């Protein structure tokens, strides 16, 4: 940390001293800029929220009645002399990088981002800056994603084979972002698509924001058992271990996550299949994004912080890490609300 830094660490979260506001705080604060609506970045209890306009629906679906101000991507405002604008991060619908300009210096905080194309959100936009605050969830060279078309061919193939075998295809994934990306990528002519109660409000928010998604149904809307056996079922991971799953009879289970890249994780997970599908940048993606900002100083947050810092330093950049509370509880945050319902079989 240096005097005059535009973003510093505080116990509440990442703080902009001249602007007097926080970015994705993990404790309640008066003014919060929210990069995206995942539970570890967008928390309850802040006084005032600022986010990108496309995030409004999903934020409200998750946080309810909040004091929310939105900006179009690229639209700038001044606050306490800090010029602030939001730029697409390509992570999920409404995800944004925060660009801060003050005293002739430009800082960009990435939030979570991915550089691969995604039909459900605006693509990542490289923003020139002096200092770039980057995430590092998959910050190791072992993480390289396969192109979407190959990946969705794998998913479609798995689903089709299950249809022939007469068993439902249960694909566990985060309810927000991952689920919609899968919906936009699979071939809906293979069979009916069923979504868990946790996924549906987010689908509604996506559709309301103008993102085309194929028709999805709730399990309660299907009375024909044979239909269920042909279905692709999207649900949070918690539902796979719950009684909710029983109504589908025989199933093949899969998990969609970047962590599925590793054989050990696939085998430990206990799923029949693992699809390597991530909302984060892979190693080449992270390095490419960092390079495209032109930043000479990089601050690394949540993920492989020490590795990325050392690697960037070896590349001649000034690099350091921030301790944040992002990333650890994404899965938990996604599944927690379903747990009590699932236990009594009312997961819907």
């Amino acid at each position, binding site marked *: 940390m240096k005097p005059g830094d535009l973003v510093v660490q505080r116990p509440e979260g990442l703080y902009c001293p001249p602007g007097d506001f926080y970015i994705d705080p993990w404790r309640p604060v008066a003014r919060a800029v929210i990069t995206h609506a995942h539970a570890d970045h967008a928390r309850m209890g802040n006084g005032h929220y600022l986010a990108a306009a496309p995030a409004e629906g999903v934020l409200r679906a998750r946080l309810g009645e909040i004091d929310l101000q939105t900006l179009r991507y690229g639209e700038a405002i001044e606050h306490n002399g800090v010029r602030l604008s939001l730029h697409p991060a390509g992570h999920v619908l409404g995800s944004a990088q925060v660009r801060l300009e003050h005293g002739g210096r430009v800082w960009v905080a990435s939030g979570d981002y991915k550089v691969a194309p995604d039909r459900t959100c605006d693509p990542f936009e490289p923003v020139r800056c002096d200092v770039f605050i980057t995430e590092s969830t998959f910050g*190791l*060279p*072992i*993480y*390289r994603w396969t192109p979407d078309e190959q990946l969705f061919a794998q998913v479609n193939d798995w689903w089709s084979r299950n249809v022939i075998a007469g068993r439902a295809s249960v694909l566990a994934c985060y309810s927000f972002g991952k689920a919609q990306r899968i919906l936009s990528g699979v071939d809906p002519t293979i069979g009916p698509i069923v979504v868990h109660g946790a996924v549906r409000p987010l689908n509604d928010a996506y559709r309301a924001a103008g993102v085309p998604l194929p028709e999805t149904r709730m399990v309660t809307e299907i009375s024909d058992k044979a239909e269920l056996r042909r279905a692709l079922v999207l649900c949070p991971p918690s539902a*796979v*271990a*719950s*009684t909710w*799953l*029983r109504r589908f009879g025989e*199933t093949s289970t899969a998990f969609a996550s970047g962590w599925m*890249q*590793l*054989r*050990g994780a*696939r*085998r*430990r*997970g*206990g799923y*029949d*299949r*693992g699809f390597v599908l991530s909302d984060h940048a892979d190693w080449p993606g992270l390095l490419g994004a960092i390079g495209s900002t032109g930043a000479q100083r990089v601050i690394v947050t949540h993920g*492989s912080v020490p*590795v990325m810092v*050392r*690697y960037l330093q*070896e590349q001649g950049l000034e690099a350091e890490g921030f301790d944040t509370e992002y990333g650890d509880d994404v899965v938990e945050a996604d599944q927690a609300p379903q747990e009590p319902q699932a*236990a009594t079989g009312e997961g819907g």
Partner: protein
Amino acid sequence: MKQFTRLFTELDATTSTNAKVEALQRYFAAATPADAAWAVYFLAGGKPRQVVNMALLAQLACEEAGIEAWLFDECYQAVGDLAETIAHVLPQAAETSDVGLAVWIEERLLPLRGLPPEAIAPRVRAWWRELDDMGRFLLTKLVGGGFRVGVSKLLVQRALAAHAGIDAKRVAQRMMGYTDGKVMPSAERFAALVAQVEEGATERADEGQPYPFFLAHQLDGTAEVFASRLGPVTDWQVEWKYDGIRGQVVKRGGRVWVWSRGEELVTERFPEIVALAQPLPDGTVLDGEIMVWTEEPEGPGRPAPFSLLQQRIGRKTLTKKILADAPVTFMAYDLIEQGGVDLRELPQRERRARLEALLTGTRLKLSPIETASSWLEFAQRRAQSRDLGVEGFMLKRLDAAYGTGRTKADGLWWKWKIDPMTVDCVLVYAQAGHGRRASVYTDYTFAVWNRRPLDKAEVDAVLEAIARKEPPQPGALQLVAFAKAYSGLTDEEFRQVDAIIRRTTIEKFGPVRSVRPSLVFELGFEGINRSTRHKSGIAVRFPRMLRIRHDKPLHEADTLAQLEVLLGAGR
């Protein structure tokens, strides 16, 4: 390689044996015989020899990926497997090739043998460039040694049999020696594995065919009941029931085959039995028990604990040490073929007489016949079973034929097992079952106290600490996990326990949940041994839940010391 890679991916992705067999069948249907020949070789346990050491491969991968050694090490820490780390760090191939597995092995990998590292490096580097992630992983495993895949030889045989529409036992015989590395796999050898059976023609490979095993029924009840159910003791042949692996030894045409009850050919795993059976005349089939026998200087010796035999099962290479530590013998108790003639229709007493005559002068063991004047006396003798290292009695009707499977039509065998040892223990972890029990928590881990709790208050304090996820203090009162069990409860009981598990979950580790301990179970098991592989230092055999002890408070559950007592009794 692409087909083989896909097969490996599918086998790797599932734990369902049916799914594995389906994947294998799909592969055999699509692959050329030459490729399939090598696939069978590797899947059935044939080992590729290491031609390049892994350190060199790792170094090559760093160069190819343009990363420093420290970064590769970081990756390895995350992945946990060198070949997989290499596969992931390498840049994506621009274009992948589709060279068949046989060409890969015969024209590329085998010629590497004996080449200096500097000649090998450029080739491996070029090959990596034409393979995808999983292909590179397999190639690296194949040249670096250490190729393993999660299928058993038996499963490969089942899939080959289903593919060819022939009997799996026949495939097993045709596969004898297939993976010993003496003859290279080839299209011809594969064709011979799956060839159709010609009516009437005897295949040389058919010579070792065993008979279906005759299985016994479980006998429960008191000695009084027996008298009325079984009739006089003089109608029965009574032997000890051994805790080994049921097996058949076949001697025909100068060769010996050993089959286990799963109709798996295990000849290569038990060379001692082959040696013992070699002097038998051709056309002999013995039924008996494969077991480890502890010799005693004075007296006949005694059966060794099953755990010793377990060390032999699954070993592909038998070292001198393991052969010396766990010497295997064959305890014969029936003769089902003699002089090439099927004896199964003969009465038990006649087969037994021939067996005794046959084994005279050989070093094969003959299962001794136990006699008593009444069932009551047998019941008293049965109580010594644990001291003798056996599981109870086998009762065989003297006029019974040797039946097929678990039938009562041709004759009758009863197993009269000793009551299981029991322990009252506490449910601490649960995992969902498979198949019908998927998404129901049916697989439980049980624990006992490391010492007797002083009172309920002390137990409550421990439970609070568990709920707060605090690790136990060394030496303090704690629960020690010692056994897993997943059978013995009714569906309704499983549903009740499942609901309690969901309500009392503390943490989830993948498919496993830790629970706030609240349930005591009576757990029964057949045997108990010391084990260095279990935290408790104890391994139990065939544990099953006898009942839920809703009446028992947690502080009255048993302790490690009580297991120690059973351990003494189990000797």
